[in-house]
Structure formats: C-alpha cells, structure tokens
C-alpha cells in the first residue's frame, strides 16, 4: 500500500465539451504543505471536487493514503478534512451546533471530544463564542471555525480551497500559521489551493496548474531555480505567460 497522502495519476475531466483538467499528476506526502497555485479558472476547484468525490474523473486515478477513490471511496473520504471555497457553515446555527453536526457526519460522538473542541476553539480565540450564531461572526472568524471543523475528526489529509480569499491580511496570516503548525505537529498532508503567490514559502511543495495542466510540481525554491527567477511570482508568471498572480 502506498504511503502517499494523495496521489493523482493522469486525472482528466471535462464539462460536456470543455476540457477542464488534462492528465493532472502529482503526489503529496504526509506532513507536506503543498500549494496548488493557479489563476481563477485554472481548474483548482474542479480538482477539489474530484478529490472530494463530488465529481468522478473521466480518466486517471486518485489515491488517498493508498485508498482508491473510485473503489474505496468511503475509506478514502474518511481520511479527509475539507475547507471549501464557499462558506459551508450554517449561519442560523450556533458554533457548537455546527461543530456537532460535523461530528455526526463523521460518526463521532461530540461529547467524547468536548475537550478537543474546546481546545481548538481556544486556539483560534473563539471559545467564548460557542453559543453565538455563525451569522454574528466576521468572515475571518467563520473561516477559522471552518478550519477547526475540518480538523476536528483528525483527518490525515487537509484540503483547503482558497480559504483566505476575501480576508484581511491578519486573518490570512493567522489561518496560514494555524494550518502550517498542524501540518508540522501532526504530520498531516495539506493541499492548499490559492491564486495568491505570497502565501507560498520557499520550502513548500508547489503545483502550478494552468488551463487544466500541471506546468510544474516541485519545491518552490527548486521551481525558482529551474526558471532562473528570484520569486515564486516571477516563476509563476514565466511559466504561465501571464502577469496576473
């Protein structure tokens, strides 16, 4: 059984006539923070939909910790924690109710992990807001709750689809820091989709996705070396032939 947290092999997908992903392949190891970098429309969200089995890929295979997503989908999904691009908290329910609902969907008794919930909420500074409705929280606070929720069942692979979009710089930094810490401390694999190059650190694994194709897949500093550029932004622009990141 493969030990890769996530392995995509020649994954393709099309919406009726439009090819959105074309033979996408890359591997993400446990404990690795991998940035999936691409402009809007590059195919990042579609790729996330395939990894979360909202769609089924037309070709290729996706393995999560050795579980084939097509044949062993439930075991594969059980390894996942997901922060979607769109907010998915129920605005009319309290933080506690939202987290308990998530526990139910994972088959976990929330009372048994009460301490874990409390600790996680303390970490993000929202322990005293547990009874508040989500509607009363700011955008950054909601994102942090979504992150706590995604990690509550202790997944081995975290998928985050542009989780910092629309947030102020402080909220962005706080969320990134939180995820990087969990990645290092708990050894979970993280696939972090973004179009913001300033979220990439030199030691991060980077997959550059453009028009549904993988243009590069390596450590950020390696990609800079290969493209003979001084920054990820320059490397990205050179590879994609654009100036939009």
């Amino acid at each position, binding site marked *: 059984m493969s030990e890769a947290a996530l392995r995509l092999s020649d994954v393709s997908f099309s919406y009726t006539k439009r090819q*959105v992903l074309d033979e996408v392949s890359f591997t993400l190891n446990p404990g690795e923070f991998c940035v999936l970098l691409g402009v809007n429309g590059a*195919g990042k969200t579609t790729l996330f939909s395939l990894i979360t089995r909202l769609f089924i890929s037309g070709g290729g295979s996706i393995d999560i910790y050795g579980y084939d997503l097509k044949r062993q989908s439930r075991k594969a999904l059980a390894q996942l924690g997901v922060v979607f691009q769109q907010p998915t908290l*129920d605005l009319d329910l309290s933080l506690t*109710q939202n987290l308990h609902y998530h526990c139910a969907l994972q*088959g976990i008794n929330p009372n048994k992990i009460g301490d874990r919930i409390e600790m996680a909420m303390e970490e993000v500074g929202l322990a005293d807001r547990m009874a508040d409705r989500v509607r009363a929280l700011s955008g950054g606070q909601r994102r942090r709750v979504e992150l706590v929720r995604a990690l509550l069942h202790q997944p081995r692979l975290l998928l985050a689809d542009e989780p910092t979009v629309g947030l102020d710089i402080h909220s962005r930094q706080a969320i990134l820091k939180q995820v990087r810490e969990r990645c290092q401390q708990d050894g979970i694999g993280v696939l972090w989709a973004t179009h913001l190059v300033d979220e990439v650190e030199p030691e991060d694994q980077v997959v550059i996705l453009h028009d549904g194709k993988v243009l590069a897949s390596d450590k950020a500093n390696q990609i800079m070396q290969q493209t003979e550029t001084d920054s990820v932004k320059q490397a990205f622009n050179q590879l994609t032939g654009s100036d939009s990141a």
Partner: protein
Amino acid sequence: MKAGQYFRCLWGIFLREGLRFLHQRERFFGALVRPLVWLFIFAAGFRSVLGVSIIPPYETYILYEEYIVPGLAAMILLFSGMQSSLSMVYDREMGSMRMLMVSPFPRWYLLLCKLTAGTLVAIAQVYVFLGIAWFWDVQPPLMGYLLAFPALLLSGLMMGALGLLLSSAIKQLENFAGVMNFVIFPMFFASSALYPLWRIKDSSLFLYEICRFNPFTHAVELIRFSLYGQIGWTAFFVVVGSLLLFLAGALYGYDPARGLMSRKQGGG
C-alpha cells in the same frame, strides 16, 4: 462504520433540520398559513357550491371543510418536500451540501437521512394544522391521528423524494420557480385534494384520468382513509411505488459517477 455511528449520523441530521426549522419561524408560519387560508376562507366560500356526497371513507354526509382537510395536510407535505428541494439547490449553490456529500457514510444513506428528517419536520406542521382544524370542527376519530402517521410519513417521503429528484436536475436556484409552477400547482389541482374525483369525471373524463394517475391524489387518499381508521390499498401501493421510483431517480441524480450533478458546475 458501526451501527452506532450510523445512528449518530442520522440523529445529527435530524437535529440540524429540526434546529433550522425552529430558527426559521417565518417558514413555520408560512407553511401553516397556506392551508389555514384554504380551510377558513376557501372552504367556507365553497361549502354551498361544492356539495360532497357520501363517499368512502366517510359514512355520513360531511361538510366541505372536513373533505378538504386531508388534501390540505398533503399540501403541507407537498410544499415542504419542494421547500427542502429548494434548500438542497440553495445548499448546493452555497456549498453546505458539499459538507454532506464528503461524509464517509454512503451517499444513499445521507440522502435518505436528509429526506426523512425533512419529512418529520413537515409532519410536525401537519399535526399542528390538524390540531387547529379540530377547533374548526373537523374532528376525525382520535385514533385516526395516530393511524395517519404512517400515511403521512409515506406521503411525505414520496414528495420529498420527488423534490430531491428535481433538485438533482435543477441547475440553478433561478430555475426553481418555473419547476414549482410546473410541479406543485398541477399536482395539487389535478388531484382529489379539493374535490372528489367523481365530480371531476362528470366534467372531464380526460382530466379525471390525469387525476387518477397523479401520485398526489393517492397520497391524499391514503391520508384521508388512514385518518378514519382505514387503509386505501390502491393508494398505498401507488404511493410506495412512486416513492421508490422518485428515490431511485434522486439517488441516480446524486451519484457522482452517473448522475446529473457531475456536469453541472464550473470552477476555479
């Protein structure tokens, strides 16, 4: 996954639907006002125009109000089924549907839990409506209220499954209004909810056949008979058959490998 975990998942979905309903009081009153307007105003106005002869399950002449109460109970289930279908489309557009879909439980189980939870919420509304109708002198035997529960559950599940099927086929929220007009109103009016089928047969044989094939007619009759301690077997089989058919279609629609979901959305 163990049996206890399945139960926890079911309970969690029930709790969420219940809490959502309690938090949306306007939805509750909206759902209740609609049939009450029909009962208090429409039925009173039409009482003298639409005489109802003795037809099973009734053993005596009844007032028109008494006749339409089972139809209005079914109407609550119909609107609720469509409402939860609407919320599925909304949830899908807004993202919270994804939360449900990435759970490691089988997808059919998750959809069934959601469907049942929505139906139970609708049944609670029906009982509040029946309680109010009691004070309006529509008083079926007390045992009928208990016996109506399985009929309400089956009918509610059938309409919820239809809603689920529609939600899997509807691309965007904006398209929903059209579907409502093409589904809810024809289903409701071309049924025995407001007038007995023999009256329709008198005016149009063609319309009568449409009403006879309308599963909503059978849901109404199943509820009507059960409220008076009887079982309408034809209605029972049609409702169960339609439920299975709609459910199979909905599960197909939400299957990422074959269904209609898979080619719907674009992305970043």
